């Protein structure tokens, strides 16, 4: 996994609660057997006025001009501010792949759904949980001119022209992103313990290992 670097970008805001992973990436695209190419179809049902399918040329599809991602201003945005309980529903990791493939590196919300939150860290996407007051602060700062935000994970800070907000994050998860840790290699360091566990348990619950 790539190491998480400091992010400097404008911020996009989608003001909706309970955005589920079906909305982030609709089912017809789950037929893919690869991880790449989901950026074009991120938020597909909201982003396009016509239905789409895997393998379509999405640049030919009619876009919804009211949807924020179709606003040129957000073309290169890497930070997404969303409503609470973002990523609820299906466990599909395609949702995280789509956000990353589009270019997002940081998500900000008052809460994320458990499986989605977990999936983010497996792919180098940083989900930041803020309290309501801090989120309000950012929303109030959204204006016609572009405001650049800097997200520094090492310092656990979000920084812009007007203020700095510090955020909490679990030490272990932070390290995973900063070092770009491969979880599997990390786990395989415990090979001996896993084998010992299996030896011990196959005597207590032998039917499990049949």
């Amino acid at each position: 996994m790539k190491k998480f670097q400091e992010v400097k970008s404008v911020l996009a805001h989608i003001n909706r609660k309970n955005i589920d992973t079906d909305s982030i990436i609709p089912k017809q695209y789950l037929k893919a057997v690869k991880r790449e190419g989901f950026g074009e179809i991120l938020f597909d049902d909201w982003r396009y006025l016509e239905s789409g399918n895997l393998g379509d040329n999405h640049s030919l599809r009619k876009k919804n001009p009211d949807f924020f991602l179709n606003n040129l201003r957000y073309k290169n945005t890497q930070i997404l501010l969303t409503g609470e309980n973002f990523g609820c529903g299906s466990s599909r990791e395609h949702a995280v792949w789509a956000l990353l493939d589009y270019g997002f590196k940081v998500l900000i919300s008052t809460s994320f759904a458990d499986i989605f939150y977990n999936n983010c860290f497996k792919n180098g996407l940083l989900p930041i949980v803020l309290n309501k007051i801090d989120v309000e602060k950012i929303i109030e700062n959204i204006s016609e001119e572009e405001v650049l935000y800097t997200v520094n994970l090492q310092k656990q800070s979000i920084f812009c022209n007007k203020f700095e907000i510090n955020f909490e994050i679990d030490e272990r998860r932070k390290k995973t992103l900063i070092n770009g840790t491969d979880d599997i290699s990390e786990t395989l360091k415990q090979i001996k313990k896993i084998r010992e566990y299996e030896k011990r348990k196959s005597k207590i619950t032998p039917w499990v290992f049949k």
Partner: protein
Amino acid sequence: MKKTLYDKLWDEHHVHSYGNGYSLIYIDKHLIHEVTSPQAFDGLKQAGRDIWNKKSIMAVPDHNVPTRFREIGIKDPISKIQVETLNKNCSNNNLLKFDLDDIRQGIVHVVGPEQGIVLPGMTVVCGDSHTSTHGALAALAFGIGTSEVEHVLATQCLLMKKSLNMNIHIIGIMPEHFYSKDLALLIISQIGTAGGTGYAIEYTGQSIKKLSIEARMTLCNMTIEAGATTGLIASDNTTISYIENRPFSPKGASLVRAKKYWENLVSDKNVSYDKTININISNATPMVTWGTSPEMAVGVNENLPALDDERFAAKKEDLLNAFNYMDLKEKQSVKSIKLDKIFIGSCTNSRIEDLRIVANIVKNKKISKNIKSAIIVPGSGLVKEEAENEGLDKIFIKAGFEWRSPGCSMCLGMNDDKLEEYERCASTSNRNFEGRQGRLGRTHLVSPATAAAAAIYGHFVDVRDI
């Protein structure tokens, strides 16, 4: 120290502690389907890693398979590639798999318990959020993403942080025609779709003890819609008699030993939970979701919420969005909602007990002329066979339903079974999100009984009135 069932299952599978609450947890059973596994097998191959324990895996195609004309194979070339990729990954690695033409094929969460592959006390994962279903057997079961599928394939373990314990305690007895699906919707309408985030939920109370395993599975299945990845019900005689005599469950002396172990899969008496929620069901009625989130649910005899209702002040925007998308009005009565389609199926409600309930209601009746299509999709080939042995298929077909082959079908509409734009469906599945059953389609989640009654009348009715 006293322990909850969740604590016990966690401790039993503990391999290594990293500090700060992180542990390496051993995974006993790994269920696999075609949609969330190809990238995991790919990753494994790229890294040159082997599968740790092939015997821990059961694979079955379900999400993306046709529910009719199976003889001609999968028409959609992209779906076909995905199912073939699963076939290839399984045969290359010699994994247990139930093919499309195998009578044991079906929805992964129906097949696992039905075969006795999932057993009480196990840790069970699957790249699917409704893995919580298996908690009905007192197994620690939860959904994972594709990276974690790869992680389990390679290491048989997961790096996890322990959840908090929540007890949802049910008070009162289940009223007539109030099913575990209604109970799940009632709970979610009260605690919200994020109410269980960060928790493992255990369901307790006399009414829970009286539920069949099928009904318990429905309840545990819906736990993820309340935000908790794990739902649990303690093991008892019902659990053990369900699991005995399944094809893969232990036999003979092994069974005697296993039973002893399973009997202890309960929370200690008077253990304290991080959070307890009491829910009284004495006056509960069948439930219907009206919006685009499972928490937007009301009793079938009620009206939709009013926009100026203070209880929803913080959610007004969501209510408006939902009314808009669903083309409904505030304060409208649930019974005035007319339907186009009926879907009975999904890992929530496609087991034999569900089908019997439907048959009882639609016997010698005809579905309403309003209804463009009403389909029943059994959870597995074996459920289908059992239903046919009992003559249920004839009752369904006579009433005007289509009787299909097993799969996820219109629960998520990855195959041909889906809603057209603006169609409205009474569905026994688990998600009413925008577009879930088809772009711009409108879903109302209900129990099989309420769906069956709606099929006959063409709009929602209280099944107790018919």
